[in-house]
């Protein structure tokens, strides 16, 4: 039992991260969140830098999943095009960093990659939302954009398709992309191996906490209201077009960030990142984990990608695809909200008969 003042301090610290828009507002949730972060943080210590370097990509994919979870789960925009922003950022980073082969180049590459992805998302979002494109048509257009990029980059094998030193490389992809790093000229630090892992982890945690604040803010309520009923929300004086535009652009920026982390992890990118199987992955993570739960999406992304790696073979996609179908039919909202509902149901059942025992009032979830 802590004293009143420290309890209220904790409550005040937690307040911006909590609200009805996020699943998991209880002590139990934050405790398990802490444990999860701790486990991820000591992973490189336990398993060594090599394992950390290989596992870094799971965190990168988790971030890509979060970019979709944010726009789909909270604003109702189902985009199959997150990979488009992911890939565009990756290629952009490659072009900048290969051409300016110094710390300056890498640093600028990070900025440029995210900026181009953000701009691309903003442009596409502007055309779609201000053009009155809705619901399922947004989904189709984002998918088509990814597929068209796939076609485009697939035919860039020729030597004329090079930007300075950086050859796009057609289906063979762009090779020799530098490691992640920051600095100016020759002075700076390279974030490779386990350092890349920590960079990705930091980005993921920062994004997670930042988005929790955002979705529980006034803007978050506006997003949720837009998801629930756009016409009604318009009637309360909200500019839902603008809300969707901003949300979609933020989603594009996050996908861009994950794209930069991806290419600096493998030092390589090819058009298969835009293919339909790749475009499906974020949707699969968010669907299985629960699109209204950022934490659920992260967990699902890591678990599914890990599973895919363990299966290492041709059956991986079959299993993942089947899992998706089964979860969508059995728990349409995904696993994390399913667990939440289960816990709430158990608690109310326990509370009802046992009237004199102090029943827990907070849900433990996620």
């Amino acid at each position, binding site marked *: 039992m802590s004293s009143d003042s420290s309890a209220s301090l904790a409550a005040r610290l937690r307040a911006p991260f909590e609200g009805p828009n996020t699943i998991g507002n209880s002590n139990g949730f934050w405790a398990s969140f802490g444990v999860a972060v701790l486990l991820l943080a000591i992973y490189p210590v336990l398993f060594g830098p090599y394992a950390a370097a290989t596992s870094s990509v799971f965190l990168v994919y988790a971030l890509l999943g979060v970019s979709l979870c944010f726009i789909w789960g909270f604003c109702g925009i189902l985009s199959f095009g997150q990979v488009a922003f992911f890939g565009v950022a990756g290629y952009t980073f490659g072009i900048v960093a290969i051409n300016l082969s110094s710390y300056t180049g890498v640093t600028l590459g990070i900025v440029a990659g995210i900026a181009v992805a953000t701009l691309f998302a903003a442009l596409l979002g502007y055309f779609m939302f201000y053009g009155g494109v809705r619901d399922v048509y947004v989904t189709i257009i984002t998918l088509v954009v990814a597929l068209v990029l796939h076609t485009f980059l697939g035919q860039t094998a020729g030597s004329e398709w090079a930007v300075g030193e950086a050859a796009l490389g057609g289906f063979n992809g762009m090779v020799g992309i530098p490691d992640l790093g920051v600095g100016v000229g020759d002075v700076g630090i390279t974030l490779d191996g386990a350092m890349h892992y920590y960079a990705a982890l930091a980005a993921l945690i920062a994004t997670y906490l930042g988005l929790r604040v955002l979705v529980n803010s006034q803007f978050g309520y506006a997003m949720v209201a837009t998801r629930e009923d756009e016409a*009604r929300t318009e009637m309360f004086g909200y500019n839902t077009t603008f809300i969707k535009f901003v949300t979609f652009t933020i989603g594009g920026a996050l996908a861009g960030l994950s794209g930069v982390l991806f290419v600096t992890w493998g030092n390589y990118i090819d058009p298969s990142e835009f293919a339909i199987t790749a475009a499906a992955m974020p949707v699969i993570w968010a669907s299985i984990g629960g699109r209204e739960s950022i934490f659920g999406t992260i967990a699902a992304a890591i678990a599914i990608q890990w599973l895919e790696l363990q299966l290492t073979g041709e059956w991986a996609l079959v299993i993942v695809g089947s899992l998706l179908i089964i979860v969508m039919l059995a728990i349409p909202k995904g696993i994390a909200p399913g667990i939440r509902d289960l816990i709430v149901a158990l608690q109310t059942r326990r509370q009802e008969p046992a009237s004199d025992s102090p029943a827990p009032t907070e849900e433990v979830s996620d």
Partner: protein
Amino acid sequence: MATSDPTVKTTAAVDETGVETDTILQTRGLRKQFGGLTATDDVDFGIDEGELRCLIGPNGAGKSTFLKLLTGRLEPTAGSIYYDGDEIGHLPSHERVSRGISMKFQVPSIYPDLSVRENLRIPLQRIADPDTFEQRTRETLERFHLEGTADETAANLSHGQQQRLEIAMAMTLEPTLMLLDEPVAGLSVEETAEVADLLRTINAEDDVAFVVIEHDIDFVETIADQVTVLHDGAIFREGSIEDVRNDPAVKRIYLGEEE
């Protein structure tokens, strides 16, 4: 809430747009065509601050098209809409709302999956400071007889409670004009009486002007003195409810469409 006595009217000053300034809403030659069909035909319609006006007419008279023009769901083919002296005919809905026009549609349009508290927060956060949310929510729930429902999911409320929640949400924005589309459609007799009561109270206490689209003349009689009859997209009659009710021509257009 400050109430200006509606019976004391200043001499109607006329501003540069030619709109009388105690008129809150005025349309001029408002027209909407779909292909060859004219759904709204050169309508000049105006209501004063604090007035409660019902807009009636048989099915297909163009009531909902007219309302959609006022709310911004449709763009007029020609003509203009003045609100508080400004032309708003081409503003998007949300900007009209920001200027003080609240709208409530026929379909109960609360957020069914959100709690009552969250429902109220959506309009509340547009005008109020976060520190006051709790208190204002409590006040609103009391005023609209929704005490104890704050944490209910809106879908679990009774039909009448949903209607009241919806009006409460529209009122939260502190509008000067409310546009209501058939507010009692599908309600029981008791619920209808309750809504009628609520509308009269709000109209009197908060000095909000109302345009109520209504099909049911009996309900109209309980809330309004002045009515406007639409027929074939144009204004057919305007006057007190008794005059209109006894007008043989109005009877004829209503009978003409008897289902």
